[in-house]
């Protein structure tokens, strides 16, 4: 099996599809035409840039460069988590909570796998570490963003109920318990669904990519299973941490609901 290399012309043909879609959404007045084109352009430019960065990174294997790349990816993911929330925590918490949870969870799971499971030489070999970290952050980001958005949204909507629970002598943890559980579940359901559907309904992107690139299917499958487990663990831990710390921050030391610590939506 040999790899069929794509030419710019091949990509241009595919781009025509997106252009057709943009025209059609203009016709239906979806208000998405421009957004779609900008997104398509962004995907092209961003992926090309990261391709160049990876090329340079693979040519100069050094822990410092790998770490720098990882940090930049983390900070971008943190920004995305914050952007996706309608009511976010005010101040440093808005950015810090999601970013820190992702950092602790995604980095430690990736590190664990790099050191114990893969054992590449050196362990931070960017060919392995960067794709793994990227997939971890991408999925953890989704989970944390969904969970935090649900948490703040629900607390806002149920503020009167929460105050009544407190007034009846419940502790802050009791009062917010159901909302907290709900937020954690929302963050973890996508990866559970993805694991359940993998192979039957969907062929995961990474595995498909490896197969397209000529890997033997069973080798690709083993990597995909590894990734799925990593994502499940990373997303789960990050979601639980972000929601637990976030829920606690919504109350003060006297167990009062402090709604002024979240923004009032757009």
């Amino acid at each position: 099996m040999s790899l069929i290399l794509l030419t710019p012309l091949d990509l241009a043909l595919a781009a025509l599809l997106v252009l057709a879609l943009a025209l059609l959404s203009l016709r239906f007045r979806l208000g998405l035409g421009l957004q779609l084109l900008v997104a398509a352009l962004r995907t092209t430019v961003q992926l090309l840039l990261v391709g160049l960065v990876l090329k340079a990174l693979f040519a100069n294997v050094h822990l410092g460069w790998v770490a720098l790349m990882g940090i930049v990816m983390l900070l971008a993911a943190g920004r995305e988590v914050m952007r996706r929330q309608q009511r976010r925590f005010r101040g440093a918490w808005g950015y810090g909570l999601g970013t820190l949870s992702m950092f602790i969870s995604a980095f430690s799971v990736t590190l664990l796998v790099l050191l114990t499971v893969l054992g590449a030489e050196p362990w931070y070999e960017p060919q392995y570490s960067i794709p793994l970290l990227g997939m971890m952050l991408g999925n953890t980001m989704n989970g944390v963003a969904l969970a935090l958005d649900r948490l703040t949204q629900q607390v806002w909507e149920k503020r009167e109920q929460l105050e009544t629970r407190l007034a009846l002598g419940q502790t802050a943890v009791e009062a917010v318990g159901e909302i907290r559980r709900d937020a954690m579940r929302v963050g973890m359901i996508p990866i559970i669904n993805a694991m359940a559907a993998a192979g039957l309904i969907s062929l995961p992107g990474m595995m498909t990519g490896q197969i397209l690139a000529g890997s033997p299917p069973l080798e690709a499958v083993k990597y995909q299973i590894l990734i799925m487990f990593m994502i499940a663990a990373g997303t789960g831990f990050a979601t639980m941490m972000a929601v637990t710390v976030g829920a606690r921050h919504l109350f003060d030391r006297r167990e009062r609901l402090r709604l002024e610590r979240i923004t009032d939506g757009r």
Partner: protein
Amino acid sequence: MGPVDLRLDAGRCLVLRGPSGSGKSLLLRAMADLLPHRGRLLLDGRPCESLRAHEWRRRVAYLPAHSQWWFDRVGEHFADPDAVDVGALALAADIMDWDMARCSTGERQRLAILRLLANRPRVLLLDEPTASLDRDNTCRVEALIADYRAAEAAPVIWVSHDREQAKRIADQILVLEHGRLAAA
């Protein structure tokens, strides 16, 4: 708001009046330690901070003007549904088995009062507890609170716009205006 200086003796009923937005609810919520405040709260000489916040609120019980419910069934909101005397407020004997959706606003309000009293609080802070009730039920609530006051020697702060009601229940009437308390 404030400064407000208030001392309430055991078993006394203080009716609080004042125009909308004058801060009556705010004052009650601060006394229940539900809002950040710079005041000093004492219960039987013990400062608020000496108790955990939820323990303070169990003793100094605040009834919000609009009752809130979160489980599907009425009984789930009570620690011991069988121990509640629903007849005292003329509620159906089997109301604890009802779906919340079946309860009217007035029934919910009366249930909320029973739910609060079930905690056996030391102090009652009632925010317009009878605003959504008809005359008969208003009288029942007044009687129930009077009994509770007598039995537990509990002081009550009762926010009410009804002057007739104030005359019936109050040992003292104060008006909150521009964040200050004044005699009526």
